[in-house]
Protein backbone atom coordinates (compact mmCIF):
# COMPACT_ATOMS: atom_id res chain seq x y z
CA UNK A 1 0.00 0.00 0.00
CA UNK A 2 2.62 2.45 1.02
CA UNK A 3 4.66 2.01 -2.12
CA UNK A 4 1.61 2.67 -4.30
CA UNK A 5 0.71 5.85 -2.49
CA UNK A 6 4.12 7.43 -2.72
CA UNK A 7 6.51 7.25 -5.64
CA UNK A 8 7.00 9.97 -8.22
CA UNK A 9 4.17 12.45 -8.33
CA UNK A 10 2.71 13.04 -11.81
CA UNK A 11 4.04 16.10 -13.55
CA UNK A 12 1.33 18.66 -14.00
CA UNK A 13 0.74 19.08 -17.73
CA UNK A 14 -1.77 21.86 -17.33
CA UNK A 15 0.75 24.55 -18.21
CA UNK A 16 1.79 22.73 -21.36
CA UNK A 17 -1.16 24.30 -23.14
CA UNK A 18 0.00 27.74 -22.10
CA UNK A 19 3.46 27.07 -23.49
CA UNK A 20 1.96 25.88 -26.76
CA UNK A 21 -0.27 28.92 -26.91
CA UNK A 22 2.76 31.12 -26.40
CA UNK A 23 4.48 29.44 -29.34
CA UNK A 24 1.35 29.78 -31.44
CA UNK A 25 1.12 33.48 -30.71
CA UNK A 26 4.82 33.92 -31.42
CA UNK A 27 4.42 32.39 -34.88
CA UNK A 28 1.29 34.36 -35.59
CA UNK A 29 3.06 37.60 -34.76
CA UNK A 30 6.31 36.91 -36.58
CA UNK A 31 4.59 35.90 -39.79
CA UNK A 32 2.64 39.15 -39.94
CA UNK A 33 5.70 41.13 -38.89
CA UNK A 34 7.43 40.18 -42.10
CA UNK A 35 5.90 43.02 -44.11
CA UNK A 36 7.28 44.10 -47.40
CA UNK A 37 9.02 47.40 -47.45
CA UNK A 38 10.09 49.50 -50.34
CA UNK A 39 10.41 52.87 -51.97
CA UNK A 40 7.08 54.03 -53.36
CA UNK A 41 7.05 55.95 -56.62
CA UNK A 42 4.49 57.11 -59.09
CA UNK A 43 4.97 56.66 -62.81
CA UNK A 44 3.92 59.40 -65.18
CA UNK A 45 0.84 58.47 -67.21
CA UNK A 46 1.05 58.01 -70.95
CA UNK A 47 -1.32 60.62 -72.26
CA UNK A 48 -3.15 59.77 -75.44
CA UNK A 49 -3.93 63.29 -76.56
CA UNK A 50 -1.20 65.69 -77.43
CA UNK A 51 0.59 67.04 -74.49
CA UNK A 52 0.08 70.65 -73.74
CA UNK A 53 3.16 72.75 -73.90
CA UNK A 54 4.96 72.28 -70.61
CA UNK A 55 5.55 75.42 -68.60
CA UNK A 56 8.92 76.88 -69.12
CA UNK A 57 11.44 75.83 -66.56
CA UNK A 58 14.62 77.69 -66.02
CA UNK A 59 17.68 75.55 -66.37
CA UNK A 60 18.86 76.69 -62.98
CA UNK A 61 15.84 75.06 -61.35
CA UNK A 62 16.81 71.67 -62.66
CA UNK A 63 19.27 69.43 -60.89
CA UNK A 64 20.44 66.88 -63.39
CA UNK A 65 21.66 63.54 -62.13
CA UNK A 66 23.08 61.16 -64.70
CA UNK A 67 24.14 57.61 -63.95
CA UNK A 68 26.23 55.83 -66.52
CA UNK A 69 26.65 52.15 -67.25
CA UNK A 70 29.63 51.95 -64.88
CA UNK A 71 27.44 53.16 -62.05
CA UNK A 72 29.24 56.52 -61.88
CA UNK A 73 27.37 59.71 -61.19
CA UNK A 74 27.52 62.89 -63.19
CA UNK A 75 25.68 65.65 -61.36
CA UNK A 76 25.27 69.17 -62.73
CA UNK A 77 28.09 68.57 -65.20
CA UNK A 78 30.51 67.33 -62.60
CA UNK A 79 31.52 63.91 -61.38
CA UNK A 80 30.20 63.18 -57.95
CA UNK A 81 30.51 60.38 -55.46
CA UNK A 82 27.20 58.87 -54.43
CA UNK A 83 27.87 59.69 -50.77
CA UNK A 84 27.75 63.41 -51.54
CA UNK A 85 24.52 63.28 -53.49
CA UNK A 86 22.25 63.83 -50.50
CA UNK A 87 24.07 66.97 -49.38
CA UNK A 88 24.25 68.22 -52.94
CA UNK A 89 20.54 67.74 -53.48
CA UNK A 90 19.71 69.37 -50.17
CA UNK A 91 21.83 72.40 -50.97
CA UNK A 92 20.16 72.66 -54.37
CA UNK A 93 16.59 72.34 -53.09
CA UNK A 94 17.06 74.68 -50.17
CA UNK A 95 19.03 77.27 -52.11
CA UNK A 96 16.24 79.88 -52.10
CA UNK A 97 18.05 82.04 -54.62
CA UNK A 98 21.26 82.45 -52.65
CA UNK A 99 23.37 81.00 -55.41
CA UNK A 100 22.14 82.54 -58.70
CA UNK A 101 23.00 79.37 -60.64
CA UNK A 102 20.98 77.12 -58.33
CA UNK A 103 17.25 76.79 -57.61
CA UNK A 104 15.01 79.77 -56.79
CA UNK A 105 12.97 78.02 -54.10
CA UNK A 106 12.09 74.48 -53.05
CA UNK A 107 8.76 74.59 -54.85
CA UNK A 108 10.36 75.22 -58.18
CA UNK A 109 13.28 72.85 -57.74
CA UNK A 110 13.14 69.79 -59.94
CA UNK A 111 15.48 66.86 -59.89
CA UNK A 112 16.00 65.25 -63.24
CA UNK A 113 17.25 61.70 -63.18
CA UNK A 114 18.57 59.79 -66.12
CA UNK A 115 20.24 56.44 -66.18
CA UNK A 116 21.68 54.08 -68.71
CA UNK A 117 20.14 50.75 -69.57
CA UNK A 118 23.31 49.19 -68.30
CA UNK A 119 23.15 50.83 -64.88
CA UNK A 120 22.92 48.39 -62.02
CA UNK A 121 19.61 48.32 -60.18
CA UNK A 122 21.40 48.65 -56.86
CA UNK A 123 22.93 51.97 -57.86
CA UNK A 124 19.64 53.25 -59.19
CA UNK A 125 17.87 52.42 -55.95
CA UNK A 126 20.65 54.01 -53.97
CA UNK A 127 20.32 57.23 -55.94
CA UNK A 128 16.55 57.19 -55.49
CA UNK A 129 17.12 56.54 -51.82
CA UNK A 130 19.57 59.42 -51.42
CA UNK A 131 17.22 61.82 -53.18
CA UNK A 132 14.31 60.68 -51.03
CA UNK A 133 16.50 61.09 -47.98
CA UNK A 134 17.34 64.66 -48.99
CA UNK A 135 13.66 65.54 -49.20
CA UNK A 136 12.82 63.70 -46.00
CA UNK A 137 15.53 65.50 -44.07
CA UNK A 138 14.41 68.88 -45.32
CA UNK A 139 10.80 68.09 -44.48
CA UNK A 140 11.78 66.87 -41.06
CA UNK A 141 13.73 70.03 -40.36
CA UNK A 142 10.85 72.23 -41.46
CA UNK A 143 8.38 70.19 -39.42
CA UNK A 144 10.54 70.55 -36.31
CA UNK A 145 10.81 74.29 -36.89
CA UNK A 146 7.16 74.83 -37.50
CA UNK A 147 5.35 72.34 -35.35
CA UNK A 148 8.06 71.03 -33.06
CA UNK A 149 7.48 67.47 -34.17
CA UNK A 150 9.03 65.13 -36.65
CA UNK A 151 7.40 64.88 -40.05
CA UNK A 152 6.05 61.38 -39.53
CA UNK A 153 4.36 62.40 -36.28
CA UNK A 154 2.40 65.25 -37.86
CA UNK A 155 -1.27 65.05 -38.66
CA UNK A 156 -2.62 65.03 -42.20
CA UNK A 157 -3.10 68.75 -42.75
CA UNK A 158 0.27 69.58 -41.27
CA UNK A 159 1.91 66.98 -43.47
CA UNK A 160 0.19 68.47 -46.48
CA UNK A 161 1.48 71.91 -45.61
CA UNK A 162 5.05 70.66 -45.34
CA UNK A 163 4.69 68.65 -48.53
CA UNK A 164 3.52 71.77 -50.30
CA UNK A 165 6.62 73.62 -49.18
CA UNK A 166 8.90 70.80 -50.23
CA UNK A 167 7.20 68.96 -53.06
CA UNK A 168 9.15 65.94 -54.16
CA UNK A 169 9.70 66.53 -57.84
CA UNK A 170 11.84 63.82 -59.32
CA UNK A 171 11.54 63.52 -63.05
CA UNK A 172 12.93 60.53 -64.88
CA UNK A 173 14.06 60.77 -68.46
CA UNK A 174 14.11 57.91 -70.92
CA UNK A 175 17.29 55.99 -70.33
CA UNK A 176 20.12 55.93 -72.79
CA UNK A 177 21.47 52.74 -74.16
CA UNK A 178 25.21 52.74 -74.24
CA UNK A 179 26.30 50.18 -71.73
CA UNK A 180 23.81 47.33 -71.96
CA UNK A 181 25.06 44.31 -73.78
CA UNK A 182 22.19 42.38 -75.24
Amino acid at each position, binding site marked *: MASKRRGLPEINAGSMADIAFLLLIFFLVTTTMDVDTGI*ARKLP*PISEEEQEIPPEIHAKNIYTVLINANNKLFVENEYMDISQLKEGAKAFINNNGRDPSSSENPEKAIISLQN*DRGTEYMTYIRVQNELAAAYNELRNKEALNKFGERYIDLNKTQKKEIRKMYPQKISEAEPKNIGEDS
Partner: protein
Amino acid sequence: MSKFRKGEKKGMPAISTASLPDIVFMLLFFFMVTTVMRETTLFVNIVTPKATEIKKMEKKSLVSYIYIGSPVKRMQASYGSAARIQLNDAFAEVGEIQEFIATERESKDEKEIPYMTASIKADETVKMGIITDVKQELRKANALKINYSTRKGNY
Protein backbone atom coordinates in the same frame (compact mmCIF):
# COMPACT_ATOMS: atom_id res chain seq x y z
CA MET B 1 -7.43 10.45 10.45
CA SER B 2 -10.66 10.05 8.56
CA LYS B 3 -11.30 13.71 9.11
CA PHE B 4 -8.46 14.66 6.84
CA ARG B 5 -9.07 12.21 4.01
CA LYS B 6 -12.68 13.04 3.46
CA GLY B 7 -12.36 15.96 1.08
CA GLU B 8 -9.55 14.49 -0.97
CA LYS B 9 -11.09 11.18 -1.83
CA LYS B 10 -14.50 12.19 -3.04
CA GLY B 11 -15.90 14.92 -5.27
CA MET B 12 -15.84 15.30 -9.06
CA PRO B 13 -12.73 14.03 -10.77
CA ALA B 14 -10.91 16.82 -12.62
CA ILE B 15 -11.30 16.83 -16.40
CA SER B 16 -8.06 15.80 -17.98
CA THR B 17 -6.41 18.67 -19.81
CA ALA B 18 -3.60 16.52 -21.08
CA SER B 19 -4.89 16.61 -24.65
CA LEU B 20 -5.21 20.40 -24.72
CA PRO B 21 -1.55 20.91 -25.69
CA ASP B 22 -2.05 18.51 -28.58
CA ILE B 23 -4.97 20.51 -29.85
CA VAL B 24 -3.03 23.74 -29.58
CA PHE B 25 -0.02 22.21 -31.28
CA MET B 26 -2.25 21.14 -34.10
CA LEU B 27 -3.41 24.75 -34.48
CA LEU B 28 0.19 25.89 -34.35
CA PHE B 29 1.21 23.53 -37.13
CA PHE B 30 -1.80 24.56 -39.17
CA PHE B 31 -0.76 28.20 -39.02
CA MET B 32 2.87 27.42 -39.71
CA VAL B 33 1.99 25.42 -42.79
CA THR B 34 -0.57 27.81 -44.24
CA THR B 35 1.68 30.84 -43.94
CA VAL B 36 4.34 29.11 -46.02
CA MET B 37 1.86 27.78 -48.56
CA ARG B 38 0.61 31.20 -49.58
CA GLU B 39 3.92 32.37 -51.04
CA THR B 40 4.78 31.73 -54.64
CA THR B 41 7.80 29.62 -55.35
CA LEU B 42 10.53 31.76 -56.73
CA PHE B 43 12.33 30.61 -59.84
CA VAL B 44 14.68 33.56 -59.77
CA ASN B 45 17.36 34.56 -57.30
CA ILE B 46 16.48 37.81 -55.63
CA VAL B 47 18.46 39.82 -53.13
CA THR B 48 16.70 43.14 -52.92
CA PRO B 49 18.85 46.25 -52.61
CA LYS B 50 19.22 48.05 -49.33
CA ALA B 51 17.62 51.41 -48.62
CA THR B 52 16.91 53.63 -45.65
CA GLU B 53 13.96 55.75 -46.78
CA ILE B 54 11.53 52.89 -46.91
CA LYS B 55 7.83 52.64 -46.34
CA LYS B 56 5.84 49.67 -45.24
CA MET B 57 3.51 48.33 -47.83
CA GLU B 58 -0.11 48.59 -46.94
CA LYS B 59 -2.82 46.17 -47.91
CA LYS B 60 -0.88 43.19 -49.11
CA SER B 61 -3.87 41.80 -50.98
CA LEU B 62 -3.74 44.76 -53.36
CA VAL B 63 -0.11 44.28 -54.29
CA SER B 64 0.93 42.50 -57.46
CA TYR B 65 4.49 41.30 -57.45
CA ILE B 66 6.83 41.33 -60.39
CA TYR B 67 9.98 39.36 -59.75
CA ILE B 68 13.11 40.03 -61.74
CA GLY B 69 16.37 38.19 -61.40
CA SER B 70 18.53 35.47 -62.86
CA PRO B 71 16.97 31.99 -62.80
CA VAL B 72 17.87 29.61 -59.99
CA LYS B 73 20.45 26.88 -60.61
CA ARG B 74 18.07 24.09 -61.56
CA MET B 75 16.30 26.34 -64.06
CA GLN B 76 19.44 27.64 -65.69
CA ALA B 77 19.76 24.62 -67.95
CA SER B 78 16.57 25.51 -69.77
CA TYR B 79 16.37 29.27 -69.26
CA GLY B 80 19.98 30.45 -69.12
CA SER B 81 21.39 32.80 -66.54
CA ALA B 82 20.26 36.13 -68.01
CA ALA B 83 17.82 38.14 -65.87
CA ARG B 84 14.20 37.16 -66.39
CA ILE B 85 10.79 38.24 -65.23
CA GLN B 86 8.59 36.01 -63.14
CA LEU B 87 4.88 36.63 -62.77
CA ASN B 88 2.94 34.41 -60.37
CA ASP B 89 4.37 30.95 -60.84
CA ALA B 90 5.95 31.14 -64.26
CA PHE B 91 8.53 32.98 -66.28
CA ALA B 92 7.14 35.71 -68.47
CA GLU B 93 8.14 38.05 -71.22
CA VAL B 94 7.92 41.81 -70.90
CA GLY B 95 4.87 41.86 -73.18
CA GLU B 96 2.86 39.71 -70.77
CA ILE B 97 2.86 42.31 -68.03
CA GLN B 98 -0.13 44.22 -69.36
CA GLU B 99 -2.15 41.03 -69.40
CA PHE B 100 -0.97 40.18 -65.90
CA ILE B 101 -2.08 43.56 -64.56
CA ALA B 102 -5.44 43.16 -66.31
CA THR B 103 -6.09 39.77 -64.70
CA GLU B 104 -5.00 41.12 -61.32
CA ARG B 105 -7.50 43.93 -61.71
CA GLU B 106 -10.31 41.59 -62.63
CA SER B 107 -9.98 39.68 -59.41
CA LYS B 108 -10.30 42.82 -57.31
CA ASP B 109 -13.21 44.98 -56.34
CA GLU B 110 -13.74 48.00 -58.56
CA LYS B 111 -13.33 50.38 -55.66
CA GLU B 112 -9.97 48.95 -54.78
CA ILE B 113 -8.41 49.32 -58.21
CA PRO B 114 -6.97 52.81 -57.63
CA TYR B 115 -5.14 51.51 -54.58
CA MET B 116 -3.47 48.64 -56.35
CA THR B 117 0.28 48.69 -56.31
CA ALA B 118 2.78 46.93 -58.50
CA SER B 119 5.80 45.90 -56.50
CA ILE B 120 9.01 45.38 -58.40
CA LYS B 121 11.09 42.80 -56.59
CA ALA B 122 14.37 42.80 -58.44
CA ASP B 123 17.80 41.52 -57.67
CA GLU B 124 20.35 44.20 -56.95
CA THR B 125 22.63 43.07 -59.78
CA VAL B 126 19.94 43.35 -62.46
CA LYS B 127 20.58 45.96 -65.13
CA MET B 128 18.22 48.90 -65.47
CA GLY B 129 17.31 47.99 -69.05
CA ILE B 130 14.86 45.26 -68.09
CA ILE B 131 13.45 47.37 -65.26
CA THR B 132 12.85 50.27 -67.61
CA ASP B 133 10.99 47.95 -69.99
CA VAL B 134 8.84 46.73 -67.12
CA LYS B 135 8.11 50.27 -66.01
CA GLN B 136 7.16 51.23 -69.54
CA GLU B 137 4.73 48.29 -69.73
CA LEU B 138 3.24 49.29 -66.40
CA ARG B 139 2.68 52.78 -67.73
CA LYS B 140 0.94 51.32 -70.76
CA ALA B 141 -1.25 49.21 -68.47
CA ASN B 142 -1.97 52.34 -66.47
CA ALA B 143 -0.63 50.80 -63.28
CA LEU B 144 1.14 53.89 -62.07
CA LYS B 145 1.53 53.14 -58.39
CA ILE B 146 4.74 51.21 -58.08
CA ASN B 147 7.03 50.18 -55.33
CA TYR B 148 10.67 49.18 -55.50
CA SER B 149 11.00 46.40 -52.99
CA THR B 150 14.00 46.96 -50.75
CA ARG B 151 15.27 45.78 -47.43
CA LYS B 152 16.19 48.03 -44.56
CA GLY B 153 19.84 48.76 -44.16
CA ASN B 154 22.63 51.28 -44.44
CA TYR B 155 25.39 51.29 -46.98
